[in-house]
């Protein structure tokens, strides 16, 4: 596997066998201004929600994005979808920078990228029938003649495992898992290339989570979809993803394929995240040594100097970590991490017995 995240100045180490990335992020930043005053608003600071991200997503792969609440993973998703405008940086979709396109020029791109949200109830209009929710994209983009929309919607419903006879029902008549299927059907309607899944199973029961994850997997195979899969649950992310990017305070601190990341994490934050994942086996769980992180994620208004993780890092050495911001470096093929004192290869294996 080639290096997917590179320094902006460097060319990729080798041409990727998978060709051009579908989505390419270069130095993407999103700062939200904090203002004070009602009429004369004065800017007093910025929330550095996303603070310089480079990421490539190749066609047909699933890239997982993990991190704690407030690390900027959902903001990243919204930037890619251009539901927000980036403060800085480039977001290339099939080679075209979409950050500066006018709404009109953006329209054809919108068709190619869709999103599935965490809370399937909040993301479905309670006053619309399922049929009109799933059919809405057709009316907006006119990819299907009006008299065919109904058939198309029924087909989609069947595809995601809903009963097409429930066409005229309202979202409240469905269970959480079924509502998420409605969300999936809507995202699929225009046959997009990219689907951004923002915590698609976090609100669901475990048994239903598994159904939705399998559904997403099947659809990916059938329609050659590319997923950007956002979740805070590392075991879910690892299950679905080809590659995983770990975010902390608006930055990517480590990227690797799922196996490498799990077996030889380099960044202490990744190690801590992995060690916190519960294991459904009392004996293994009791043996496992946990790296307990102290405190909460610092405020993204004034991120810590140097390595942003240093105030919570069990391996931090001073003054290096406090003064120097580490760059992403390659450790194993395809694995990059931003750390001055990375974990040894065996560290986690020993910790988990």
């Amino acid at each position, binding site marked *: 596997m080639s290096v997917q995240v590179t320094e902006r100045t460097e060319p990729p180490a080798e041409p990727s066998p998978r060709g051009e990335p579908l989505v390419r992020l270069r130095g993407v930043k999103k700062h939200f201004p904090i203002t004070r005053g009602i009429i004369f608003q004065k800017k007093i600071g910025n929330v550095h929600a996303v603070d310089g991200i480079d990421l490539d997503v190749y066609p047909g792969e699933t890239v997982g994005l993990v991190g704690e609440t407030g690390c900027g993973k959902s903001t990243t998703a919204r930037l890619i979808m251009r539901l927000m405008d980036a403060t800085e940086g480039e977001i290339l979709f099939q080679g075209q920078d979409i950050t500066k396109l006018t709404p009109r020029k953006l329209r054809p791109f919108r068709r190619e990228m869709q999103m599935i949200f965490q809370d399937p109830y909040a993301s479905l209009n309670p006053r619309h029938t399922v049929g009109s929710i799933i059919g809405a994209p057709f009316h907006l983009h006119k990819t299907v003649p009006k008299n065919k929309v109904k058939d198309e919607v029924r087909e989609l419903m069947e595809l995601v495992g809903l009963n097409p006879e429930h066409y005229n029902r309202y979202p409240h008549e469905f269970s959480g898992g079924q509502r998420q299927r409605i969300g999936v059907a809507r995202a699929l309607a225009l046959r997009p290339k990219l689907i951004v899944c923002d915590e698609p199973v976090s609100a669901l029961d*475990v*048994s239903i989570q598994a159904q939705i994850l399998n559904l997403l997997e099947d659809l990916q195979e059938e329609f050659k979809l590319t997923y950007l899969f956002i979740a805070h649950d590392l*075991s879910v992310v*690892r299950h679905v993803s080809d590659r995983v990017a770990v975010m902390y305070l608006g930055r990517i601190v480590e990227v690797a394929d799922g196996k490498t990341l799990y077996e030889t994490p380099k960044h202490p934050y990744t190690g801590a995240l992995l060690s916190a994942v*519960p*294991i459904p086996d*009392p004996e293994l769980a009791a043996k496992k040594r946990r790296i307990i992180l102290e405190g*909460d994620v610092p405020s993204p208004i004034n991120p810590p100097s140097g390595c942003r993780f240093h105030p919570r890092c069990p391996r931090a050495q001073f003054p290096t970590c406090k003064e120097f911001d580490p760059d992403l470096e390659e450790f194993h093929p395809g694995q990059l991490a931003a750390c001055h004192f990375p974990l040894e290869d065996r560290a986690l294996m020993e910790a988990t017995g």
Partner: protein
Amino acid sequence: MPEPLLEVKDLKVHFSTDDGIVKAVDGISFSIAPGETLGVVGESGSGKSVSFLTIMGLIRSKGALISGEVLFRGQDLLKLPSDELRHIRGAKISMIFQDPMTSLHPFYKVGAQISEAIRAHQDVSKKEALNQSVEMLRRVGIPRPEERAKQYPHEFSGGMRQRAMIAMALSLNPDLLIADEPTTALDVTVQAQILDLIDRLKEEFDAAVVMITHDLGVVAEHCDDIMVMYAGKAVEYGEARDIYYNSHHPYTWGLLQSITRIDEDLGERLRPIKGLPPSLIFVPRGCAFHPRCPYVMDVCKQEVPPLLPSAGHHSSACHLSLAEKERIFDQEVAAQR
């Protein structure tokens, strides 16, 4: 076997609605000894929350038909008048909920809310109660508790709020703490912290804990006993080891197979339980799980399987023979894990 702290016998909670009778809880029995942790596992709508809200005396709906016995130190809570129950609730049995933001009052300072709970049960001055609140916040690991007590819930992060809830729940040194999905809304790192905190405080306060969850993965290392609930009934009950290493019910197998594991081999496909949990108004005839069960037999569609013990207090409600259950678990469930 120590004297049980809480013993529940054949608890039923039915609600009569316009559409029919909802059998939210349909005859569950279990007991908890001091210092023990009981895990209650099931999907949404399996009756796990309703059971414990009933035990706390928090189901007040006129349409609720409650029967059975809830013996807390030998005293039947269901028969207590509400003012006597109030002395027990909060002081002897307390509860924490899934979403700490909705269970803390947004208009009051955190310290004041904990003080209020203390003053509802103890005759202490406001100042004394506030001091106790600050001390509790310190014990649950909130840094700078004096300042934090003067803040509002919105100034707390999710994990901090849950700690504040735990501080409130433990401020009266209860004998029993009921935690209803205490970590579902939290990040994994915070989840680990909170579960460890509950474990540690359990020892410190010598309390018993009930951990309600939908995720068997989360409670593996924290429970002594586990009760698996489905459609208002206990389908399997036993020590944690029995449930994880020698489970006897197809529903429990389904739950175990649905979990994504961080230590699994990649490329394994998940094996979810097919279908959806039933409506509690039209519970399927016979075994409620039969329409979703891969091992369904004719008898399952007719007769409700009783909860029968196999060894110790490990019991399961399934028509499969014990030998069948063990064979299937070993060959199909354990082999995959």
